[in-house]
């Protein structure tokens, strides 16, 4: 009997409390929390350094405005960023995103410019929990067509580049797609007339590489190249591969002069070393993803400098500027962001991901400010209305695809044997946009490995 009374009493209490909770005055928020899951460690750690750019944007916002002004409450509260390390493991991205929403109660999610496995699961979490999210990079198609089909996830927005433009895209001018920049480079060096036009392709069997292998060989054929062994999936390899002798032999036998593909930097290092060891040197070598980050390029070695002349897409330039206005938060410019990075602990070489990280955070903060509220739907509506010059281009999302194209250029790695600390520097050698100036002329053919 006593027990029964106690239980009843407890139930009444809980009920009473929940009623009070419902009808009582809602409390003003004390902070704005953004959350991101990043490959801080693991094979994609180069992508994880975008977290620095994200944090920089949050710091800039707090420093400039003293926090986030929320008009709904008429309060200014500090902005916080929580970054979780998914260790480059796609299986951790979903659970970590959920954890950010459920446990850390983040108000918005940020996803990096990274292989799509590392941001796709966040989209589903954002949709399920009605938490707005921005993916800070591309390419756009694998995300749009791959994981979601034709329906755009309502709470996710994509500010990056495309492989080629989807129909009805917002900017129908060159300089926003991989196809543009790649072929701009190929045109610039006269690839079709100065090489035999025979191309070898390589790609890792993760979703990024698979998507690349499915779409790029056809585009290359359209451009006028002859691609070797696509029907036998020559050059398509599992991530456990370390020995590439068979494909290098096949390319060599087929007289390949253009080498083109997409894989992690570590794998490309072993691949290009095997090319060198077999005395197979193409005239052009384009390595999407692999050649993005200086530490990866350095790891391929300087005896000989295997990264010399290898090219890939470039997401961001410290020179980026529109007229002479500031494009970052407060008086932040692209140049000052790069300078702060260079002066940060360990004086790291430029990682162009910091621009992407900054940009998406900047867009999200702007939307929260416009919404003046932490309500998911309100922020989401503000994101739809975004019209903003950012540190990495003008962002306004397409209402159907949720895509906003940001500028893209093409870079090659230059080697300076005198510079022992940073022997490799990536310079932009092909750009269609005046905001991203070309920094050097293209390297063609690849510098002779064999003296």
């Amino acid at each position, binding site marked *: 009997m006593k027990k029964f009374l106690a239980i009843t009493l407890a139930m009444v209490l809980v009920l009473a409390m929940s009623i009070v909770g419902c009808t009582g005055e809602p409390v003003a928020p004390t902070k704005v929390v953004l959350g991101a899951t990043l490959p801080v460690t693991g094979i994609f750690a180069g992508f*994880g350094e975008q977290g620095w750019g994200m944090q920089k944007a949050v710091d800039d916002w707090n420093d400039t405005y003293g926090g986030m002004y929320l008009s709904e409450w008429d309060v200014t509260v500090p902005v916080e960023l929580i970054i979780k390390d998914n260790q480059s493991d796609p299986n951790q991205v979903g659970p970590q995103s959920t954890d950010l929403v459920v446990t850390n109660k983040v108000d918005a999610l940020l996803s990096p410019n990274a292989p799509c496995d590392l941001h796709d699961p966040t989209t589903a979490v954002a949709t399920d929990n009605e938490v707005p999210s921005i993916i800070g990079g591309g390419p756009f198609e694998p995300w749009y067509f791959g994981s979601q089909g034709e329906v755009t996830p309502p709470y996710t927005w994509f500010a990056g580049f495309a492989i080629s433009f989807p129909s009805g895209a917002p900017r129908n001018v060159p300089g926003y797609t991989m196809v543009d920049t790649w072929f701009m480079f190929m045109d610039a060096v006269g690839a079709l007339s100065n090489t035999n036009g025979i191309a070898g392709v390589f790609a890792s069997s993760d979703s990024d590489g698979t998507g690349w292998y499915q779409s790029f060989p056809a585009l290359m054929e359209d451009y006028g190249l002859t691609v070797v062994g696509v029907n036998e999936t020559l*050059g398509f390899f599992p991530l456990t591969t370390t020995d590439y002798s*068979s494909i290098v032999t096949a390319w060599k036998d087929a007289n390949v002069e253009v080498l083109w593909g997409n894989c992690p930097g*570590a794998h490309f290092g072993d691949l290009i070393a095997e090319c060198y060891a077999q005395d197979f040197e193409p005239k052009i070598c384009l390595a999407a993803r692999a050649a993005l980050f200086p530490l990866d390029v350095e790891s391929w070695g300087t005896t000989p400098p295997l990264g010399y002349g290898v090219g890939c897409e470039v997401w961001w330039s410290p020179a980026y500027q529109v007229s002479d206005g500031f494009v970052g938060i407060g008086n932040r410019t692209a140049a000052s962001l790069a300078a702060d990075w260079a002066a940060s602990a360990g004086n790291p070489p430029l990682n162009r991901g910091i621009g992407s990280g900054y940009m998406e955070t900047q867009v999200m903060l702007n939307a929260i400010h416009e919404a003046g509220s932490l309500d998911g739907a309100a922020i989401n509506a503000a994101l739809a209305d975004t019209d903003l010059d950012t540190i990495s281009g003008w962002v306004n999302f397409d209402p159907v695809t949720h895509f906003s194209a940001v500028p893209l250029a093409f870079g090659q790695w230059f080697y300076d044997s005198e510079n022992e600390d940073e022997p490799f520097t990536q310079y932009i050698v092909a750009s269609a946009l005046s905001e991203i100036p070309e920094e050097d002329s293209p390297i063609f053919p690849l510098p002779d490995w064999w003296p």
Partner: protein
Amino acid sequence: MEDFLVGLAPPLIKGILLGGLYVVIALGLSLVFGVMKLINVAHGDLVILGSYFAWAVMGWLGIDPFLSLVAGVPLFFVLGFFVQKFIINRTFRISLDAALIACFGISIIVQNLCQAIWTPFNRSLLTDYRLLTFAVGPLTIQLRYLLDFIGGLAVMLAVRGFLRRTYLGRAISAASQNEPVAERMGINPNRVYSFAFAIAMACAAVAGVLQGLTFSFSPTSGSPFLIISFGVIILGGLGSMAGTFIGGMVFGLTQTLGAYFSGGSLLVQSIAPYLLVFVILSVRPQGIFGR
């Protein structure tokens, strides 16, 4: 026919030479399993730790990776001895499962330690001679792969000779064959375990140098080599040093020949050895050399 043979020679040579690397990596795993029936799931990570050790010494002091083994092998030996003595032997008192879990723990710790000290980024042992090649008749041999083979053969012979001819080696052999009887003969199993793990770690130090000269590495790149080692051990037969050697050769050859006969397919290259592992397991579960 002649053309066929000329085409076949490079993958044959490559497979055998590459097999040498697999042998060195698998030896330590094989030894530990033979003696204490423990699958040391941290072995791949310990090999990578060996790569990092050589890399660090090269960076700080400019010492050649092979020369760094003069310090690396004893250091790893001592480290292995104490890891076994103070961690794994204690977990054995609970159960073999507890020891397996301890190995998982070591794996995670080593990976994170490498991340913390050397960053998650990709590295290679960038020696001047790393990518040298030389011609033997019509064939080109890559130095790094040749070193793998020589290293594999040398380490295998050294471990085998040690097990047969030394006081300690005989105790390890005896304990791995019949532990209760070995103990009855006065052999302290815990000491044998400690030495076996120490030797396995010393092998990992050598394996680390060879692997780092041949391929690039990062803190997480140990696990593929653990899986390859399983394959090598299954092919060669558990606990047999000569068997592990043959297993390594067979594994390497299956990879390169698989790729060769499929027109260069790296998917076939990665799957072929495991198909062979399945076949061997079904017709000769004790391995090619196992008894």
